[in-house]
């Protein structure tokens, strides 16, 4: 009942306010009339009665205000009033509003997006149960010397035998697989061979069917396959009948036993088929194809497991003199998925974007302070007209929060768009990109920070002016009061900070840009224009072409057809391609060059190529000859070595005529005569600088899956479809994959550095822009404040140039201070970039010289505009002002 009465009042007060007000007015006037009547009845004159009645009433408006104060919903009403007033103030100062909103939106948007990316990649739980207990085990040893390399079956058995730290170690390897041929057209997919414990280690449940059961990696087991959700939908129309069906994997039948959900993306994001790896007792060491994956036993930590693996590594070396400096590095599952360079890059970017937010916040604070000074007089006037101080403060607070919320909304839109873009495009080729989504926590935090800024820097000066001496403030009429002078100093300090922080970011971006430019200058070792080279991975199918003779005939036909396509200049096949598709690698021996006992040459790229490979890519011949069609199976084995090979292994000798052989375990005594020396080519990525290699002719070293490389007279991508059709028509069992022009491969191989560079440059650009706006605002404001003074100076004979110099000097001195501080900050922080840099140091002199110059130029430009405006001040007007 009473509650209903309250609600009725609330409704009345909020929605029929004019009537409520009229009613109150009528009531009070009626009271006044009655009172006047009474006085007259008591014998007063009409005018006197009215006057006394008014005095007794004590001010009509004051009584009304008292009544309003007790109304239900008064707070809400005032809030709405404040909001309306706030919106009006924001609309009336479009420059202030736009700049503040832009700063907040950029700061909040960029941060929310970046932190969502960082959270998704670094922190969001993986879609595997208890993934933090799963570790991946690698092997590093000389002569191979890959930091996170692979092991062979014998190593795995030895690890398993001596293992205490993990539950049931599993083994896996990624490989390309040809699927189909019996049902539907064959296609090449990414696959993996895994031991029986693989799925249970990762605690992943199939969508339908089952995963491998214990013992299904024993040699007597038949071939089984677990397929991914994507291929199940694509090839089998999501039919549950696929279970128990026999499919062809690399030409051999395998029974499908289960389907994995799409979120399961291990070992690779694209992996779609898992077959059971059979643990046939190895007769020798090699091949080194495998990595281990295992779950830590309860209570065992990763360092403890590493210690145990170190011991096992020592034993492996004792048993096999081939291994030198062997270790078994172990990484948590997430770190293994991310790789070693991504985490520092993401952390650097997250730190950088945090600095952008800092600058944005400082900018808003600066704007707020400037506005507080402008509004000093308004506040004083309102106070003297009877506004409550609390009410004023509340209103300023409402304005700040309003601004922050609007900025936050714009930032949210920006973040949402940014994340959608990153997810769809994945420009950095980031792993775990599917776990990146707009993070509410990050957005909330950013919003909180920006609101806090608005409140602190909007409120503090407001409170101060609320306390100020009203008389002097109004009389001064907006000329510098003591409080506003203090604020001026605060603003100058804030601008110095902005410049310093933006310069730090600028230096960081400069370093990454220089590093990326270095990366772009790396050619990969071939001179053919990348846009004119088309490459694709061909798999003729295991059944027919396992035999070298049939296979060689097939590839001869491929090359013949390719060369006949109009626009194709030369064509070749190879098992390796620059910049980062290494095929085989092995150690080797040089005839007549005995190694010290126990010594061994490193494992380097051994590349199998058809005769025209070097001409096709434009790899220069230094000495001797290229391979020809005469280097066949029946003739003496020949090899070509790279320049780097000669420099390292045959220094100061004539390489031609020397004989080498593959010398890893399992190779025979097959000496190859060196017939040529060619330029260095990169097969391990553009950033690897020493990559010696030796080449063997295809006819003497056949491999089943090969890359076709075609050099075209024009844009290579246009020929892709024609070539695909020509090659597939040779045999319907042929599958083609990874079709694309070389320029794409090159771009793809540096996608992550490009992503880092792009983002950091973007952040630095925003920071510089915000800093420029900050200093522009400061100087423009100060010019406006000094109109009078400048007018006097000009009246006394100062030239325009003097005025410009005076104003610019003010900006330049702030900038200089900011730049000194910023260089210090950059010096301290850019070392975090060290691991991301290629070809330059973290204290690159050019960057450290250029960034301050650029920063100074932008600042001077920003001060020049208000400086010019100052010269247009007319002394007459300025002196008459006020």
């Amino acid at each position, binding site marked *: *009942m*009473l509650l*209903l*009465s*309250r609600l009725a*009042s609330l409704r009345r007060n909020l929605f029929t306010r004019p009537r409520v007000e009229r*009613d*109150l007015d*009528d*009531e*009070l006037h*009626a*009271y006044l*009339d*009655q*009172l006047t*009547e*009474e006085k007259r009845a008591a014998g007063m004159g009409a005018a006197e009665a009215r006057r006394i009645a008014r005095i*007794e*009433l*004590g*001010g009509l408006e*004051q*009584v009304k205000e*008292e*009544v309003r*104060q*007790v*109304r*239900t919903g008064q707070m809400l009403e005032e809030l709405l009033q404040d909001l309306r007033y706030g919106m009006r103030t924001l609309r009336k100062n479009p420059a202030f509003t736009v700049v503040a909103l832009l700063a907040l939106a950029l700061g909040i948007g960029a941060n929310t997006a970046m932190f969502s990316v960082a959270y998704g990649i670094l922190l969001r739980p993986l879609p595997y149960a208890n993934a933090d207990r799963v570790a991946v085990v690698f092997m590093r040893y000389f002569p191979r010397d890959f930091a996170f390399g692979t092991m062979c079956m014998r190593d795995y058995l030895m690890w398993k035998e001596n293992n205490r730290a993990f539950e049931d170690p599993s083994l896996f390897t990624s490989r390309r697989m040809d699927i189909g041929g019996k049902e539907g057209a064959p296609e090449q997919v990414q696959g993996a061979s895994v031991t029986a414990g693989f799925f249970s280690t990762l605690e992943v449940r199939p969508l339908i069917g089952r995963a491998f059961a214990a013992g299904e990696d024993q040699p007597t087991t038949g071939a089984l396959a677990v397929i991914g959700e994507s291929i199940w939908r694509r090839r089998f129309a999501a039919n549950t009948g696929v279970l128990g069906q026999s499919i062809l994997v690399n030409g051999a039948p395998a029974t499908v036993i289960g389907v994995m959900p799409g979120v399961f993306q291990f070992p690779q994001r694209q992996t779609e088929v898992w077959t059971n790896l059979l643990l046939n007792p190895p007769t020798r060491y090699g091949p080194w194809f495998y990595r281990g994956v295992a779950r830590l036993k309860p209570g065992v930590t990763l360092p403890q497991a590493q210690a145990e693996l170190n011991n096992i590594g020592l034993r492996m070396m004792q048993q096999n003199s081939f291994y030198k400096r062997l270790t078994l590095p172990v990484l948590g599952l997430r770190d293994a998925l991310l790789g070693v360079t991504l985490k520092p890059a993401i952390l650097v970017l997250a730190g950088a974007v945090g600095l952008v937010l800092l600058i944005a916040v400082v900018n808003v604070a600066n704007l707020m302070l400037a506005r507080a000074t402008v509004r000093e007089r308004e506040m004083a006037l309102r106070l003297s007209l009877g506004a409550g101080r609390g009410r004023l403060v509340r209103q300023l607070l409402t304005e700040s929060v309003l601004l922050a919320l609007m900025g936050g909304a714009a930032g949210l839109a920006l973040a949402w768009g940014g994340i959608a873009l990153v997810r769809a495009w994945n420009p950095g080729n980031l792993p775990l990109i599917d776990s990146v989504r707009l993070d509410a926590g990050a957005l909330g935090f950013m919003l909180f920070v920006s609101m806090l800024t608005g409140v602190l820097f909007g409120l503090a000066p407001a409170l101060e002016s609320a306390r100020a001496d009203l008389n002097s403030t109004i009389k001064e009429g907006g000329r510098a009061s003591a409080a506003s002078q203090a604020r001026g100093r605060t603003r100058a300090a804030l601008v110095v900070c902005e410049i310093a922080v933006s310069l730090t970011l600028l230096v960081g971006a400069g370093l990454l840009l220089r590093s990326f430019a270095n990366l772009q200058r790396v050619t990969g070792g071939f001179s053919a224009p990348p846009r004119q080279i088309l490459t694709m991975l061909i798999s003729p199918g295991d059944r027919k072409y396992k035999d070298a003779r049939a296979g060689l005939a097939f590839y001869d036909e491929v090359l013949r057809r390719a060369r006949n396509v109009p626009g194709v200049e030369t064509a070749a096949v190879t098992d390796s391609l620059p910049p980062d598709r290494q095929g085989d690698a092995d150690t080797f021996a040089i005839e007549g060059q005995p190694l010290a006992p126990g010594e061994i040459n490193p494992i380097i790229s051994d590349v199998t190529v058809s005769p025209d490979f070097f001409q096709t890519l434009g790899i220069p011949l230094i000495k001797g000859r290229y391979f020809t069609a005469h280097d066949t199976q029946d003739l003496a084995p020949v090899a070509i070595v790279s320049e780097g090979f000669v420099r390292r292994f045959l220094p100061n000798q004539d390489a031609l005529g020397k004989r080498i052989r593959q010398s890893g375990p399992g190779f025979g005594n097959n000496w190859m005569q060196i017939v040529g020396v060619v330029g260095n080519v990169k097969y391990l990525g553009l950033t690897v600088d020493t990559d010696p290699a030796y080449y063997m002719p295809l006819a003497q070293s056949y491999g089943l899956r090969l890359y076709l490389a075609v050099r075209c007279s024009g844009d290579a991508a246009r020929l892709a479809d024609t070539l695909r059709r020509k090659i597939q028509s040779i045999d319907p069992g042929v599958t083609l994959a990874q079709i694309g022009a070389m320029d794409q491969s090159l771009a793809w191989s540096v996608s992550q550095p490009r992503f880092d560079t792009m983002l950091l440059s973007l952040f630095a650009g925003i920071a510089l822009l915000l800093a420029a706006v900050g200093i522009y605002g400061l100087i423009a404001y100060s010019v406006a404040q000094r109109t009078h003074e400048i007018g006097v100076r000009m009246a006394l004979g100062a030239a325009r140039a003097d005025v410009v110099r005076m104003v610019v000097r003010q900006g330049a001195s702030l900038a200089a201070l900011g730049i000194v501080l910023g260089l210090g900050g950059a010096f301290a922080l850019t070392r975090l970039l060290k691991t991301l840099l290629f070809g330059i140091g973290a204290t690159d002199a050019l960057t450290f010289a250029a960034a301050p110059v650029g920063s100074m130029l932008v600042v001077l430009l920003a001060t020049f505009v208000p400086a010019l405006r100052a010269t247009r001040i007319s002394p007459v007007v300025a002196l008459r002002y006020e």
Partner: protein
Amino acid sequence: MPATNLLQGTLDLLILKALALTEMHGLAISHRIAQITNGTFRVKPGSLFPALHRMEEAGWLASAWGDSENNRRAKYYRLTAAGRRQLQAETRQWETIAVAMASALRAN
């Protein structure tokens, strides 16, 4: 006792008491209060009207426009059922306090 310095609770109780017998307009209420307190409390409009509006919104009073004794329009207030209950409750409370205060002040 200074007439302006009325405790809010006291003013509420006086208004409820003033309206106990019949409905009244604002001026009549302030006269009635002066009368029943023998001129001790003189309620000013700046206190009276906020109190009336507050009590109306609380549901203790209801108001309606009517004609005054000398044929002028005036807003009349009357007690609601809730207002009557409130009057009883506050009266009891006040009596308890008054007895307690009197006894406290008489004590040595």
